[in-house]
């Protein structure tokens, strides 16, 4: 099962803004260029691209939780 890893340390968000729905929910199709979340660091939000294809299997890192580079953010099957 390919995991989507955080490219950098920061705070992980599931949605583009606090009122919006998460980028992906379990069962959604995932294309390599799809954004699955945001990592905030240095006052910048960086879009995390899936870089793998398949079916979204859920977030592993919590919303608004700190993450380190290389941490698993979400699973794709």
């Amino acid at each position, binding site marked *: 099962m390919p995991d989507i890893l955080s490219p*950098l340390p920061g705070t992980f968000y599931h949605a583009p803004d606090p009122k919006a729905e998460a980028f992906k929910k379990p069962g959604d199709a995932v294309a390599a260029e799809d954004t699955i979340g945001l990592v905030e660091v*240095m006052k910048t939000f960086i879009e995390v691209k899936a870089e793998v294809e398949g079916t979204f299997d859920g977030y592993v890192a919590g919303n608004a939780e700190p993450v380190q580079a290389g941490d698993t953010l979400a699973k794709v099957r």
Partner: protein
Amino acid sequence: MAIKVRKAGLSTTIQDMGRPGYFHLGIPEGGAMDRFSMRVANMLVGNDEGAAGLEAVFMGPELEFTKDTWVAATGATMPILLDGEPREGWSAFPVKAGQVLSFGFLKEGARVYLAFAGGIDTPMQLGSRSTYPIGALGGVNGRAIAVGDELPLGTPGKTAARSVDAALLRPKQSPVALRALPGLYWHRITEASQEKFFAEDWTVAPEADRMGYRFRGGAPMEFVPREQPFGAGSDPSNIVDGCYSYGSIQVPGGTEPIVLHRDAVSGGGYFTIGAVISADMDLIGQLQPNTKVRFVKVDMETALAARKDRRARLQKIREALAAG
């Protein structure tokens, strides 16, 4: 041209030892956040220590070489790959025209420093190639490197396969201790708050950048009551605008300390409780968000001794590499 930028990373900037002498005009010294690592990277590839290299934060860039040269990567630990083959950090290695340098996930530290034989030869502004994006100074047209940029290199010096003995590098600490000298406005907070500041654990906030490193997690500071001075703002953390030194610890509202770093503002209306000593500023450049630090109270004598020790460590590396 000698280096083509294929991926820029998060914020990869050309940096050298900065442009001292203009802070009174509001132009920060700038330069590598972790000067120790930048100097050593330059030594490894046979450059003048003030030569310009790249500072990449949290993520490495992807670079293609258009001529043969030598490269060294120091500072943060992340896998270094040349055409996908691993290379060692804190070592100089040769690259051939057409080869691609890339990086894996960050493992330790925050900023990787890349030196290239001859140094990056972009135009100097106010005596430095360092990038100060807000002031549009240095770098590539005043900005961080971007995909498609081509970076020229200067004339190489003596190159060889050199590496630094790990025993000569800075010892690792956890939590990182940042030594600080209480300053001009130390009296503004109560004795209890003064003690707490040095006793509590502080966590690096995600907002930390080249201008300042913000910390949270400690208790809000209590201020000594005062009559608002003419010209100062109404918040107890306000002062009549004053100058900041780099390393100053500003605490807006008495809640989250911000250590002003290489690209900091030169003055403002918040009080500063003191300053991190010059010897420890490099360490801040290697702090990741959400890591813990302690501030340790020192006096001027200790600060000067620490500065001397830092110089001595660099001198040992310089001698070891020269002996080769």
